[in-house]
């Protein structure tokens, strides 16, 4: 009864490429264990991890603050894959249990049923590797994205060699590709102490820990180990600048009770804090909360780890990092001390060259060349007269956080600076949302070219070029050229 039109596109549109009972984002310890548990429970499981990250992304500090201190080893993807596998033995167990493991694959968007997206073809997560992007359906999804670096700026932080503790840990322990030899660590909490011990284990010299408060902040046993290794603690001190050359940092200058001290080093590691990596969950619309004891902005989760998105849970560091009750005040103290020790022209947003004075003066980016006295007549004070500071507004006006790294390096300090200037407590600091894609993905990879051959063949017919006047039965025969010649369209 029905005569099928060979060139009709109905039914040829792609659906999600595959479907798993359980998808786990992040193959750290928590994620790998969740994947293994899922496989043991008989589920079909997909485990993805964005590591090894492409070297050009690492150079723009995606997803961690690498500060260009990785060795040439990261340029060889095969070697990185081997290293990652050898440093995470659990992955082998996962393989054996039939978990599909995709490394070097990032999750750029999560689309779970909720108002606005309720009738997507099920729940979807957008994935991309070095060659393609695709959508995967799932019943359950576990985000185990870990933590990201909490970054505060100081004069000279915008040069190679200033990096984050999470990035250092990744380079030391999972990539075995850290290029530094002698490091100075900011902070003395558990994170800083563990970072120091890890560095020492890997034969890296630790020139000192800088602590803004009067005494060491972390666990006493850890502190004793660090002290026993002969690592000095500079308490009540703050970095006032990092000096360097073409290869980046050569020394840091710190100011404390006893005045100014210079410490030679090639790397400054920010270990003041790590914060939960919530970008995927935030972009998907999961409900968030601020918790000082869990490291700042965290997804709201129930006892089972479920977020406000149906079927989506968060585990490990991205669900919250155990922190001291005054952790947010501690962040703020660091910011205040670093700010007092530097001038307003200290860069806040490296990508867009926004200084602290530019940010709080709400100035348009300098490269536009559009500054004038009348443009100067705006600043954060005048905006505050109209209501609390809105990081999205400041972002649009100054472009802080809108550059290549999309605020990965500056979002926390922008938020804290706005809070400080507005007289808000750190836990009320404005928060900028995330939007998909949460990883920078090339257009050529995002592009939806995955179409059935039947669609590609009929493309010119649908698009309205001259071939549209050619009867279907003549397409692909010698009569096709005749139709085109007769009916116009000489331009192609």
């Amino acid at each position, binding site marked *: 009864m029905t005569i099928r039109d060979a060139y*009709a*596109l*109905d*039914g040829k*549109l*792609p*659906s999600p490429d595959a479907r798993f009972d359980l998808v786990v984002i992040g193959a750290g310890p928590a994620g790998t264990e969740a994947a293994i548990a899922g496989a043991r429970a008989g589920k079909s499981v997909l485990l993805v991890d964005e590591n090894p990250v492409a070297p050009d992304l690492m150079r723009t500090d995606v997803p961690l603050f690498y500060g260009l201190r990785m060795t040439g080893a990261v340029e060889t993807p095969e070697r990185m894959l081997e290293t990652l596998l050898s440093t995470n033995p659990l992955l082998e167990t996962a393989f054996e249990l039939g978990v599909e493991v995709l490394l070097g694959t990032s999750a750029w968007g999560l689309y779970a049923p*909720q*108002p*606005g*997206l*309720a*009738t*997507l*073809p099920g729940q979807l997560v957008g994935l991309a590797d070095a060659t393609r992007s695709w959508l995967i359906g799932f019943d359950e999804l576990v985000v185990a994205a870990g933590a990201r670096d909490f970054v505060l700026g100081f004069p000279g932080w915008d040069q190679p060699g200033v990096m984050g503790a999470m990035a250092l840990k990744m380079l030391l322990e999972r990539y075995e590709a850290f290029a530094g030899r002698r490091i100075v660590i900011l902070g003395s909490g558990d994170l800083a102490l563990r970072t120091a011990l890890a560095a020492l284990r890997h034969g890296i010299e630790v020139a000192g820990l800088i602590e803004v408060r009067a005494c060491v902040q972390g666990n006493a046993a850890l502190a004793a180990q660090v002290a026993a290794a002969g690592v000095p603690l500079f308490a009540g001190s703050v970095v006032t600048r990092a000096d360097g050359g073409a290869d980046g940092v050569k020394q840091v200058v710190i100011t404390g009770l006893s005045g100014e001290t210079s410490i030679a080093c090639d790397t400054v590691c920010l270990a003041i804090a790590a914060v939960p990596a919530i970008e995927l969950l935030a972009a998907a619309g999961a409900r968030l909360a601020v918790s000082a004891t869990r490291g700042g902005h965290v997804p709201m989760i129930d006892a089972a780890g479920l977020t406000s998105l149906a079927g989506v849970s968060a585990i490990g560091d991205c669900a919250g990092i155990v922190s001291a009750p005054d952790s947010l005040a501690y962040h703020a103290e660091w910011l205040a001390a670093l700010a007092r020790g530097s001038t307003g022209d200290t860069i806040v947003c490296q990508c867009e060259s926004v200084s602290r004075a530019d940010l709080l003066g709400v100035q348009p980016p300098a490269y536009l060349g559009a500054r004038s006295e009348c443009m100067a007549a705006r600043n954060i004070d005048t905006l505050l007269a109209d209501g609390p500071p809105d990081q999205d507004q400041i972002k649009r006006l100054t472009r802080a956080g809108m550059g290549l790294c999309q605020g990965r390096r500056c979002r926390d300090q922008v938020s804290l600076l706005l809070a400080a200037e507005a007289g808000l407590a750190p836990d009320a600091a404005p928060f900028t949302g995330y939007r998909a894609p949460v990883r920078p993905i090339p257009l050529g990879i995002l592009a939806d070219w995955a179409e059935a051959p039947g669609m590609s063949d009929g493309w010119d017919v649908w698009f309205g070029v001259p071939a549209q006047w050619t009867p279907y039965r003549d397409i692909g025969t010698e009569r096709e050229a005749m139709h085109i010649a007769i009916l116009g369209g000489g331009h192609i």
Partner: protein
Amino acid sequence: MLLINCPLCGPRAQAEFNFERPVETIIGVDVPTAELVERLYTRTNARGPSAELWRHARGCRAWLRIERHTVTHVIASVAVWEPQS
């Protein structure tokens, strides 16, 4: 992106379908002018449930009546359009 369950073809991607208009704007030819204009052109533009006429334009070409929520996008029903409905 919606997944629309065409009663004739089964679940298909929304790209195969055209949204035509809200059902409220479908009128007969014998409606007085003032009412015609009001019903044809103005919209409730519902923020919530909405009854709409769609067409499976790149499929079976059937006209469909779809009950849909404009905020959550939940599709409550899809039926072949009956002019009297």
